């Protein structure tokens, strides 16, 4: 059987339904399942990757041609992001393997798998309402996982997330509704062709709804109040999924819709503006954080701001740079969350203050944190450098020096607070002998990420050559319509 994009959804779902039964047999089996699933999916996506880069694979479900049935649109962009998601997903699973020691383990793995699958679905689907469904899958899994540790703060964070998340889904659903009522269709490609049927006023309203609804998922300021709480209170691997995968999916959804339906210079300007706002405010807030994971969360928001800016520029170069940045951020932020997870675990405190001396006590974990910090600041020879460079190049090409300087201001702030944390790690201090070690699976997971980060940093061409088709796919609405409606 040839690998088909629908398997990205079907297999994890199948596995998720299977997990409770496996749970009856053995816990180990439960733990292994997501790993096997993601490994298989990564394998499949790598197989499928070159094909999708050449020409979008449009897969219909239930045998009805779009726009009548739901179709999955596995274009270059989706392929790029999904491959990233599956690989990162696998690594995060590897990390979770020993990290999650709290019952109910099988529930954790089900939710975890569904969280990633939901994101994959958002990236994959070619149907507007179907996207809503996947959005909800992601959200509900996310709410539950945020509160997974069942502590005071986790529940609070999850509730806030849910509150804002409900707004997101409501707004999105309303926009679907308005679009459907005028165009009579739900398929993206079909809608894009008929978008002019919507009267301007309603169209504007839809735009507002989509921007706000998806802006919440994409952590746009000021819609991101939930994000720092959720990131910091969720278990670390889940934080990594949020920062690395979920938010990317949300952003992709927003950008896909905007680029398909509303790509006007004004909207792009607006995106740039929001991106800058998001970037700067998040970085400034991150600077003053005392908790390491909260700091990472704000940094994530800031990075999303950067990506939004790059997408808002909307040129070929900037879009590929944005995709590259997404890729890097997924890897690097995961690495940071991984390391931070164990650092918090070892020090027994979430405060940055209390990390003193861990650099000597837990050298490897701290080392990985340092690598991640350097990489996310955009220092060579790590991969973050290239994407930041490309973004800046594209911004400069667009001729907006003010934006360039604002981005760099953000980067400077980012550099300072990350290094503060790193330096804190390596402050000499007697730490009580801690027999707990970072388990090997966690180290391997971090090692894989760090290796990829370094490899891509030294040979950016590996990723870079795929960026052009991916960006083209995202930018070129006409091609999308043609392929989507075959």
């Amino acid at each position: 059987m040839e690998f088909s994009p629908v398997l990205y959804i079907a297999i994890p779902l199948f596995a998720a339904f299977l997990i409770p039964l496996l749970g009856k047999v053995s816990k180990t089996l439960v733990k292994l399942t997501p790993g096997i699933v993601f490994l298989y999916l990564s394998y499949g996506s790598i197989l499928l990757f070159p094909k999708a880069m050449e020409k979008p694979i449009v897969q219909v479900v239930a045998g009805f041609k779009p726009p009548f049935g739901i179709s999955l649109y596995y274009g270059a962009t989706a392929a790029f992001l999904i491959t990233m998601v599956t690989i990162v997903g696998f690594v995060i699973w590897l990390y979770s393997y020993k990290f999650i020691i709290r019952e109910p383990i099988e529930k954790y793995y089900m939710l975890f798998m569904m969280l990633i699958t939901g994101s994959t679905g958002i990236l994959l689907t070619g149907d507007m309402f179907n996207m809503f469904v996947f959005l909800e899958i992601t959200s509900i899994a996310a709410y539950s996982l945020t509160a997974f540790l069942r502590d005071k703060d986790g529940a609070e964070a999850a509730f806030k997330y849910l509150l804002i998340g409900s707004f997101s889904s409501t707004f999105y659903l309303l926009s679907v509704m308005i679009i459907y009522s005028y165009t009579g269709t739900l398929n993206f490609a079909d809608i894009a062709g008929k978008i002019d049927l919507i009267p301007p006023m309603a169209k504007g309203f839809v735009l507002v709804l989509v921007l706000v609804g998806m802006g919440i998922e994409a952590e746009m300021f000021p819609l991101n109040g939930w994000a720092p709480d959720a990131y910091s209170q969720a278990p670390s691997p889940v934080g990594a999924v949020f920062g690395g995968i979920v938010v990317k999916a949300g952003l992709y959804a927003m950008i896909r819709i905007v680029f398909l339906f509303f790509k006007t210079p004004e909207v792009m300007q607006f995106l740039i503006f929001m991106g800058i706002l998001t970037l700067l405010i998040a970085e400034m807030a991150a600077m003053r954080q005392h908790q390491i994971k909260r700091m990472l969360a704000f940094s994530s928001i800031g990075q999303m701001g950067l990506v939004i800016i790059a997408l808002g520029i909307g040129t070929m170069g900037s879009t590929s740079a944005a995709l590259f940045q997404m890729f890097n951020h997924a890897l690097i932020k995961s690495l940071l969350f991984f390391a931070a997870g164990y650092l918090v675990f070892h020090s027994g405190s979430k405060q940055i203050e209390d990390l003193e001396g861990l650099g000597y006590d837990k050298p490897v974990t701290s080392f990985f944190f340092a690598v991640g910090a350097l990489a996310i600041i955009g220092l060579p020879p790590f991969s973050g450098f290239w994407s930041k460079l490309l973004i800046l190049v594209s911004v400069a090409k667009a001729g907006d020096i003010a934006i360039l300087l604002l981005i760099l201001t953000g980067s400077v702030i980012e550099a300072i607070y990350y290094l503060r944390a790193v330096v804190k790690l390596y402050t000499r201090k007697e730490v009580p002998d801690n027999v707990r070690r970072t388990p090997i699976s966690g180290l391997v997971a971090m090692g894989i990420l760090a290796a990829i980060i370094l490899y891509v940093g030294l040979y950016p061409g590996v990723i870079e050559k795929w960026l052009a088709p991916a960006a083209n796919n995202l930018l070129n609405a006409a091609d999308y319509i043609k392929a989507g409606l075959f």
Partner: protein
Amino acid sequence: MRKAIAILLLAIVGYYFINVFIHMPFGEKREGVGKYYLENTVKETGAANVVTAIVVSYRGFDTLGEVTVLFLAATGLGAILFGKRGEKRRLQGASVIVKTTSMMLYPMVVLLGAYVFVHGHLTPGGGFQGGAIIATGVLLMFMSYRHFNVSHNALTWIESLAGLTFATVGLIGLALGTTFLQNFLPLGTPNDLVSAGIIPIIYIAVGFKVGAELTGVLDNMLKTIR
């Protein structure tokens, strides 16, 4: 203060909201996929209930997601409430009348639920509705009997097997060389009980699953979770 701001903001949103909808034609037929479905459903899927056909077949993928959402809600609730100690139910048990009536209604409600989902492709209703009805029955029992218990094990099995059935049916379609969730059974005559290919199978699975999940949700909220 907060209220005033909220009212002001919502008033503005509401004004423009209504403004948009006021220009939307109401009660008129519209072109689009809806029309296509009305015209072709019976021919293509063999289901008399167009909504069901859309839900299970045309947009079956949505439904799979929907089932997953529910499944996740149940799982998530289990995870969130894991280890919660059950509230001591201080209220005294229901009266004999309630108890007896519930006992008598319960099988009938379950039966009704089963009916609704089995006939999902023919009549209004379907897996979700049926499942919800079944869960209502269970709720009835929960309310009237202090010590009414459902078997977690059984719920898990039902949930999983139903879910697996859905996914497997979908995968069979793919395996047969067509597409995921592709119908591979004969369509039969519309309006027959055994018709519409895989739609009844899926809807029955959904019915079981929804019933079990909602029951699980109720149970989770009420009881100690282990």
